């Protein structure tokens, strides 16, 4: 029991630090890729290939001036970014990162909490994410920030609906809300994306909107709203909002890989006869590669597509994605019934 608690604490710390480090280095990769897309070099002065740039940015953010507007609501002003960061970190608890480790005969799962309602947990935490932005934007007492916050919440709740409806089909096929069970059913090449291409597409579009990334980055639309909801933020509190976006990107990539691309499974991997711990490590690397693939798509889209207009965004969410998602559920129901 004690070893289990120590192991879980260790695992939680490793996962949290890993998401922080991945988020830090995604900023560098994003800037490098933006450079390549625009035929320039990107950051290349701090260390070889600019590898120390994220560290320099982090240190710079810590040592920037702590600033709070006089008319802001002090408590909520600090709560906003902290909540956004905290919520962004929480989602990774329900993701199965790999098969079980076996040390001295004891089994250690590579998942912090195998909750039997994993999908509901992820959606619940995701919904709370809106509050961080809303609270921060409202507490700043700045008109641009408030507008950005209202836009963010309106956008996120609209796309959350289509997102949950696109997941319903996976639940119907699996008959379970547990993340580990959904991964277990996708063994080999039995990935959900081949059965649910439409659901995957809807989920991918909604993931862009939920992470507030281009082309859905209206909450921080620079040309209209200065900085959007984080206009009044500086120092590490601004850093929290920016990091949370990259953590969300990493985690939504992990959720998509888990739900649609078979999680840590890769065809033929379990037939190689690797020892359990090596197998767990290789499987984790497989999952990580899939997440990297999604990270690449996120960045590719951001530097290729222009931003939506607000009415287009609402039209896409309510008049296209939600009806298509409902139709997808009905079609999946018919197919399941015919196969019975």
């Amino acid at each position, binding site marked *: 029991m004690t070893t289990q608690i120590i192991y879980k604490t260790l695992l939680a710390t490793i996962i949290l630090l890993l998401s922080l480090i991945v988020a830090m280095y995604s900023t560098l990769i994003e800037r490098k890729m933006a450079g390549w897309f625009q035929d320039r070099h990107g950051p290349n002065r701090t260390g070889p290939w600019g590898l120390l740039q994220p560290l320099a940015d982090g240190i710079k953010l810590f040592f920037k001036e702590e600033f709070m507007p006089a008319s802001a609501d002090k408590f909520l002003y600090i709560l906003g970014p902290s909540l956004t960061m905290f919520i962004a970190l929480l989602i990774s608890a329900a993701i199965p990162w790999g098969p079980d480790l076996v040390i001295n005969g004891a089994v250690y799962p590579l998942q912090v909490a195998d909750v039997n309602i994993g999908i509901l947990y992820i959606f619940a935490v995701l919904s709370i994410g809106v509050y961080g932005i809303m609270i921060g934007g409202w507490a700043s007492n700045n008109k*641009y920030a408030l507008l950005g916050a209202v836009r963010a919440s309106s956008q996120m709740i609209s796309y959350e609906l289509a997102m*949950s409806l696109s997941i319903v089909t996976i639940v119907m096929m699996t*008959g379970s809300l547990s993340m580990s069970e959904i991964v277990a059913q996708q063994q080999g090449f039995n990935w959900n994306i081949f059965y649910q291409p439409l659901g995957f597409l809807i989920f991918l579009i909604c993931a862009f909107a939920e992470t507030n990334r281009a082309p859905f980055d209206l909450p921080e639309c620079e040309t209209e709203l200065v900085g959007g909801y984080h206009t009044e933020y500086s120092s590490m509190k601004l850093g929290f909002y920016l990091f949370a976006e990259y953590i969300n990107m990493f985690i939504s990539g992990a959720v998509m890989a888990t739900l649609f691309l078979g999680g840590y499974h890769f065809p033929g991997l379990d037939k190689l006869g690797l020892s359990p711990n090596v197998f767990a490590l290789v499987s984790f690397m497989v999952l990580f590669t899939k997440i990297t693939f999604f990270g690449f798509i996120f960045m590719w889209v951001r530097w290729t597509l222009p931003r939506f207009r607000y009415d287009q965004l609402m039209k896409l969410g309510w008049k296209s994605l939600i009806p298509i998602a409902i139709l997808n*559920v009905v079609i999946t*129901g018919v197919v399941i019934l015919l196969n019975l």
Partner: protein
Amino acid sequence: MSAESLILFFIVGAFLVGFAIVFSIFVAPTSTNPQKAEPYECGIPTEGLTWLQFNVGYYLFAIIFLIFDVEAVFIFPWAVVMKEMGMIAFVEIVIFFFVLGLGLLYAWKKGALKWE
């Protein structure tokens, strides 16, 4: 065990966030003056209150969202048992979606989904 692990995860996460906030309070320099502490509005002094009424369109979307979100809560337990229940479950959800679709159609025709 999974509930305890979740709480453990919450604690570790809260500790990381709290540490960064407190650390930045200690290391970051501060200097304020009345001009700096004003809300940022591109250099112009801010006019009137910030916390005013905003566009009713956002409010309408929030209301429709609330209805649909409650419906989504009903769909998830249905999806879990759908395979076992078979035909009855399917017919029932089609009726459910029909009612839901009518609601969406009503909001659509009333112009609540149109952004102005």
